């Protein structure tokens, strides 16, 4: 099972280039770890949310933690962004109160979940293409 640590606020740099290439924004996946990972005291709101994807290998979600590259250099801090602000209000509330969302992304996961991947993936935006995620995990 994968857990994705997601940045929960906007860092802003006064230099617009450094802001784009370096600053973390709300919804940027920061790191991906396995199910058994325990997070540090500050890896919580207001700085971070956790998106849990039970029974999904970490390797399958690492792509969401890479920078957007153009012409061999970093163009944006993260290629992918989770559109937190357009999630259903009850999911946003869950993130604010519980600090996490559990997403069912495989039929083999039968325990409690907050969303299905078929819905969640529509909030995963590829900032390079402007398109949302269409792939299953």
């Amino acid at each position: 099972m994968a857990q994705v640590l997601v940045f929960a606020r906007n860092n802003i740099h006064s230099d617009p280039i450094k802001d784009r290439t370096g600053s973390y924004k709300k919804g940027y996946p920061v790191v991906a770890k396995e199910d058994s990972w325990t997070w540090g005291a500050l890896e919580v709101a207001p700085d971070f949310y956790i998106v849990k994807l039970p029974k999904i290998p970490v390797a399958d979600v690492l792509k969401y933690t890479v920078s957007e590259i153009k012409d061999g250099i970093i163009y944006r801090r993260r290629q992918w962004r989770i559109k937190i602000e357009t999630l259903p209000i009850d999911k946003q509330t869950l993130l604010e109160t519980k600090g996490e969302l559990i997403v069912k992304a495989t039929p083999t996961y039968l325990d409690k979940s907050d969303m299905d991947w078929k819905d969640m993936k529509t909030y995963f935006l590829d900032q390079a293409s402007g398109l949302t995620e269409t792939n299953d995990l």
Partner: protein
Amino acid sequence: MATEVEHIIDPDNGAGTDYTSASAWEAAQQRDLTSADEIAVGTGQCTGATEDTTVLSIAGWTTDATRYIKLWTDPSGGYRHSGKLSSGNVYRFNVTHLSNYQQVIDVNEDFVRLIGLQIHTQSSAILGNYGIRLNSTVADGAEIFVEQCVIKATLAGTSTGSYGLLTAWVGSGTRSLKMSNCVVYDVNRSTDAVYGIANDGGWVIYCYNVVVHNCYNGIYGGSGAMRAKNCIAQDCDGACYASTFHADSTNNCSDDGTQPGASGQNGEVVFLDEGNDDFHLDRSDTVALGNGTDLSGDADYPISVDIDNTTRTSWDIGADFFTMAAGTFYEMWELGQDDRTFYTEAGVDSAMSEASLGAEKIKVYATTLNTKEQIYSDT
């Protein structure tokens, strides 16, 4: 004076942990340190032997010479390497790269200090694999420190374009790297596009008391702006030292005659345990021991300790300042021989008897940590 704001990074999430990866620390803490008048300190710990396997990019900050980013291990904290690649409760990066042009630590900010870190960079069939890269986005006037670090590469398949540490090409300027008391090794893939330490151009580099071992190319000076002092580069398939170095380079050592500058040594350094990648100096070495130059008063980058944070009271070449174990040892020199043999008290009497029977001419010294006394001579 700026305020140090420290956070604990421990992948094992032990007591007191703020972040479980350097990457999360960097994301949460990135800010304008100059207006906050702060130094951002990430202190690596490791309470359960778990490695930090997440690549770290340092970007999106505002820094200056007195308000900078520092990622380190506290030498008194118990979580730093022992001067060689270490396991167990040692804070360390271990990253296997899965895509081209990745680095374990990518520095994009101007004032950063990486101290006491262990970095293992691994790849197979990957182009451009870096332990540490100082990026071309770093501005003129920048000052980056890399000190007391151990950097190892494991390259397989068709990995090429790999570096232990690379300063990316910037053409010209006054960006400086101050690197000391580090070990960089195994950046080797039997091709010529891999380097232990490389100045791709435009950086001013002070490379002091560094060991580079088993890298295809050892240390690449790049247009003469690298000042190498007291460095060892050895067992490199290409050149131990390549390109040009600044005229201030001095007291360097190689085994292929390429060492730059004055007072160089050409020979095989005897390390404590080279086969197991322990590049501390062995007491029997004659190439590096005592052949360094005193850098405690260096005009550009004074240093005074070694990779183990031991104060240097004399100057050896390489990352280690040799210190003897407690007690007395006996060294026997035979007339006409360039090397000495060491004995404990139990062994020296029989060695001397054997020498007299064989009519060798010898001198024997009793040596301790601080003294050396000739106790016998028939030369």
